[in-house]
């Protein structure tokens, strides 16, 4: 384009008009529109399943199970939400998952931040070995230890108890927490710590009075990521939990059965209401902490 207009100056009228058009507002819109179309497609693609779940959750059963489909409910209702919340296993699951994911997160942060302090602020022999160990744990296939955990857990009478999950979930939350928190620890400047040492602080005091407050944002991010990972876990929960009162959210979501008790027609309205209930808090948290999550994810993956 530009070479044409430069070499063919004398006969450049149509070209320059085209150029002027491209520079005008409308022109910019027209030339950019395929790009924006692409943006819109990505947008719809990413959000549609969630929006469809939302639509189905508010649609009464008689409209939900009739063809042709109505894309917006004629008589929006909250019935599906009340039905989902009336299922006692689902209410238990919300509580159980909060307990499990919460404890796993707190444990990982407590234990992991100590390790991150050692790995991020001290130089010692074996440091890189520990780093590699933790990294290899983050890609560890959990299925490989299912049988061993299964027998160990039943030996310690933890089968069908939430403790079994808290214990086994540490395998994927802790190494990840250590790895990400170490990168946060390393990024801190040395001066503050040194000033504290000059003032006579002990390493432990330096840890919880100086460093820990400084990596608070890192703790929030890492904590949220660990929480989401534990909240979403399915394989161990499916294998170690049996009674409906001890279900976690992923198991409960797949356990709804139709009112008549027949599994023939699944109560999709109720299931979709349940999916909205369990994902909405996550989505809100993720959107609020968006920037930090991106930082944490890339620290965990790209720098790895």
């Amino acid at each position, binding site marked *: 384009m530009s070479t044409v207009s430069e070499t063919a100056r004398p006969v450049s009228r149509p070209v320059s008009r085209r150029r002027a058009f491209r520079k005008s507002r409308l022109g910019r819109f027209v030339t950019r529109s395929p790009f*924006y179309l692409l943006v819109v497609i990505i*947008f719809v693609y*990413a959000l549609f*399943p*969630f929006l*469809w*779940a939302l639509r189905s959750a508010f649609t009464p059963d008689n409209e*939900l*199970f009739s*063809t*042709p489909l109505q894309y917006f409910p004629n008589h929006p209702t909250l019935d599906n939400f009340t039905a989902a919340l009336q299922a006692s296993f689902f209410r238990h699951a919300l509580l159980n998952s909060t307990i499990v994911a919460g404890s796993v997160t707190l444990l990982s942060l407590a*234990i*992991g931040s*100590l*390790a991150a302090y*050692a*790995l991020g602020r*001290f*130089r*010692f*022999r074996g*440091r890189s070995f*520990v780093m590699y160990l933790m990294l290899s*744990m983050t*890609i*560890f296939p959990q*299925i*490989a230890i*299912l*049988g*061993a955990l*299964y027998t*160990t857990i*039943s030996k310690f009478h933890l089968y069908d108890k939430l403790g079994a999950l808290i*214990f086994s979930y540490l*395998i994927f939350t*802790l190494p990840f927490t*250590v790895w990400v928190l170490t990168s946060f620890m390393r990024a801190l400047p*040395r001066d503050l710590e*040194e000033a504290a*040492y*000059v003032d006579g602080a002990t*390493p432990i005091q330096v840890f919880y009075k100086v460093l820990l407050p400084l990596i608070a944002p890192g703790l929030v991010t890492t904590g949220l990521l660990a929480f989401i990972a534990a909240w979403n876990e*399915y*394989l161990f929960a*499916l*294998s170690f939990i049996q009674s409906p009162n001890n279900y976690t*959210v*992923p198991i409960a*979501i*797949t356990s709804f059965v139709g009112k008549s008790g027949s599994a023939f027609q699944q109560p999709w309205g109720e*299931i*979709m209401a349940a999916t909205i209930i369990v*994902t909405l808090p996550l*989505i809100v948290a*993720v959107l609020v902490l*968006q920037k930090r999550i*991106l930082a944490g994810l890339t620290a965990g*993956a*790209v720098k790895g």
Partner: protein
Amino acid sequence: MSSVATPVPPTGRRRRRSKLQRRQTRLAWLLLVPSLAVVAFVAIYPLGKTVYQSFTNQEFLALEPTKWVGLENYRELLHDTVFRHAVWKTIEFTLITVGFEFALGLAIALVVNSSFKGRGVMRAVMLVPWAIPTVVAAQMWKWMLDDTFGVVNDAGTRLHILSHSQAWISDPSTALAAVCAVDIWKTTPFVALLLLAGLQVIPGDLYEAAEVDGASQLQQFRKITLPLLAPAILVTLIFRTLDALRVFDVFYVFFGNRPDTQTMAIYNQDTIVGDGHVGYGAAISVAIFLIIALFVVIYVTFMRVTED
């Protein structure tokens, strides 16, 4: 190390520092004890135990005592057609999803990397599929793919893309495509975000210089973007491949333990928890572990080669 700043008399310096160093090393290990203990107890010990169990005929809640059977389980595994089928299904799934996720993810990353209005919103939106639990996402899609009341069939027939409604999940010819669709939907934005992070560290003046030299968009992409993005691409591919190889959730929600659509992980879980064959299941676990390790080795050697 941190108190190097404090003045130390030259004579005692060496001994003093080594004493300090030793104290620091001790403290560091002390801080690591809880984490290492957890890793040892939750990962390394069970892994060792799995290897041991794989040489026995252990059954869950067995009446007879467990016996050492040597390589018997592995011999059986070699002739286990169900397992072989599961391995190929898993690898097929891995190749399809990782391929699509990478291609689509790169395209999305390039779009989002250019500046336009609403870019921030776009990045936020991309986190939504990632934040939705896999099991929940699978349920959402299962409903969307329903044979009679699913929106995919409805929209497809209305737009004349489909001639008739499809039983996407129960029909063996579309079953794999259906699970792949869920995984691709859930993970592509994540891949895009990782690649985007890689794109953003490429300095802008490189493109400006290329522009001055008259390089075309395609040339810029091939000579600047791809080589500089290579490390991020490799890491993303490794993480995705390893993740895809242990896939469990989507398949289980869609098909349960239906034999024609078992993945390695589902067959393994079903053998251990469903049938109680702990010994044989352990052998399957070890095999899966080795298969995944093989992929790691392939990637790492590939990485070394491209670095040289």
